[in-house]
């Protein structure tokens, strides 16, 4: 009786293929994220530093991705004051000036903020993009 040659792949090759697939997916995700962040060239707000001493960050521009917690106050001349849930479980106040009044901001919505640490350490949004 004639003997048939084996046709199954070698296990090493299977593992290599799996690793390449995972790396491909991760890389894709990374590239997608980077591509989705409108302020990817900017530094993220150092939240803990801000909480300890906001004055030391005055004049700097940062980016911040946060979720609207609630609108605390509104002024036609000064704009809207929001509290947002920042990464790390912190809650930060962000002033959205009247120039950005065309952007609707509601509780639970996630936004990319381009913020400036203004006078008295008040975080003032210079640009807003919906995440």
């Amino acid at each position, binding site marked *: 009786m004639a003997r048939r040659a084996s046709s199954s792949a070698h296990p090493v090759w299977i593992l290599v293929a799996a690793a390449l697939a995972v790396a491909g997916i991760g890389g894709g995700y990374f590239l997608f994220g980077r591509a989705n962040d409108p302020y990817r060239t900017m530094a993220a707000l150092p939240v803990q530093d801000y909480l300890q001493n906001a004055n030391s960050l005055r004049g700097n521009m940062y980016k911040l991705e946060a979720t609207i917690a609630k609108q605390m106050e509104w002024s036609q001349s000064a704009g809207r004051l929001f509290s947002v849930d920042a990464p790390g479980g*912190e809650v930060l106040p962000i002033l959205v000036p009247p120039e950005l009044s065309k952007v609707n901001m509601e509780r639970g919505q996630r936004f990319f903020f381009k913020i400036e640490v203004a006078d008295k350490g008040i975080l003032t949004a210079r640009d807003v993009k919906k995440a």
Partner: protein
Amino acid sequence: MHSTLPIGCGLFLFAAACLAQVPDAPAPSAPVGEKPAGKDAPSFDPGSEILSWDGRNWNINNNRLFQARFEKYLNAPEATGAEDQQYRAVLTEILTRLAPGSATTQNVDYSFRLLARGSNYDIDARLCDSLANAVYTVWVAQRSQQRLVTANAAMQYEIMSLEAATQHQGTVTQHAKDVSEKMSGSRKPAGKNAPPAKTSANEQAAEAKQATLESANWQMRRLAEMIARQKSNDVKRELSEIAAKVEFQALMVQFFLQRRYQHVIMATRFYRALFNDGDSKLNLGKDASDLFQRSTGQPPTVSVLDSVANEAIRDVREGVKAFEFLLENKELDSATKRLAEAFTIGEYMPEVRTVPREKKRRVVDFSHKGFQLISAIEVKDYALADSLVKELAVSAKDFDSSKPTAAIETARTTSHFLIAKARNAAISGDKQGLETALTAATQTWPRNPELADVSRLIFSQGDVQEKAVIDFGQLLTQKNYRKIYEDSGRFIAALATYPDKAEQLKHVLEDMKQIETAILRADEMARQSNYAGAWENVEKAFAQFPEDSKLNQTRANFTTQAADFVRTLRNAQELEKQEQVGSSLAWYLKAQKIYPQSEFAGEGVGRLVKRVLP
């Protein structure tokens, strides 16, 4: 009727006798027609036991005179000595010989002779002499020469007897003296061991000598009296028979007033033997006659006198028997009363005099306590009265405690009421009311122990108040409001009369009320695991009252339990002070996230929001 008659009569007579005579000395006969005692005739109400005499009233069982005589009697030995027995035998012999149907001339003469003998005894108080004198006077008036000769012979016989006795006593005295001297002389060389025996022998000899001398003196005096009487009889001139009769009647009445009932009976029997004209009416003055009529209900006659005396003797005898029976049954109250009645009526009766001292002593204690109870109630010492009532109730099963108990309880209740009134007046600062109530309470029950306590309390109240005022000032200066709060009762009472300090106290207590409320609320929140809320409550109170120790302690405890919230809030407040509005607002928001109802966080957010959006 018969039982009350002698008692009433006897009590009256006792009072009259107490005031009119010295117990151991003969009283002079009251002249007929004169008022027997004082300005008014005494009267006695047996129902109330009140004797009225000379404008005064007193209870016959409750006066010092009666107490003194009765106690003297109770403590005296029974009259059962040889001399007492001889005396009683003499009187019995006289009464027997003069009894109706036996009063022959010989018996009368013999009885007259026995009168002289009876008078020799000290207990007789020479009453037999008085009777003999009256009899002799009647014989003189009736010119009974034979009787006078007999009487003088009887007296001569007595004189000779006394002389013989006196001579014998002199010999005995001399003998006692010789024996004394002889014994003292013979003992002299006995040396050091002798003195006790010598002293004893000397004492015995001295006592014997003293006794014989006293006896000799008495007999010498008696002899002198008898001789003097014989001489006076010799000089008696013609007397009217009527005058002699009146004098005899007066003597009988006098015996009756002195409660010498045996002498009364002897006198009435002599009277009947001497005056056989059938006239037995007593010739007394109006007052004396009225007195008898009121006491006996009959006009005064020799027969009435005789029957009342006999009835009194019978009553005394029954009284003593009742006393002995009641004593056996331990009914001391009734026994004492019966003996007191018997004593009052027939103090000199043999039945009364022969009651053994041992039996009398048993009622002495009861009697003392009874008199002490009356005195205690009179002086309003109700505590003592109460204890005496209890003692008497235990010692005498028939003691009626209802009256003294009612008096004690009434006084006690009234006193309690007045003391309560005084206390209320003291609390309300009513000094006038306090004084009035205290005075009334003191008058009601001067020795009330509760009164002393209240007085001490009121008097010390001033010191207590002053100390409380000083303490309050010190604690206020130290801001130790909690101590003031803990002792608020004392300070409220003490500062009531200091309006300015009372106002300060009011503020302190209101503050402390806030602190206590905050602590209570915090504890409640802590029970619900709301430590941030609990801390915030005490923190708010702490901001107002940072000195309170208890609040501090509570705050420290909750600071530990709500550490995250406290630290967040502290950071927010610190950064707010540094004008870091953004960071501070972020911390306040974080604190609000931890404890959404936080007033501190809410207020902080509100403040800072206004700064961001003016």
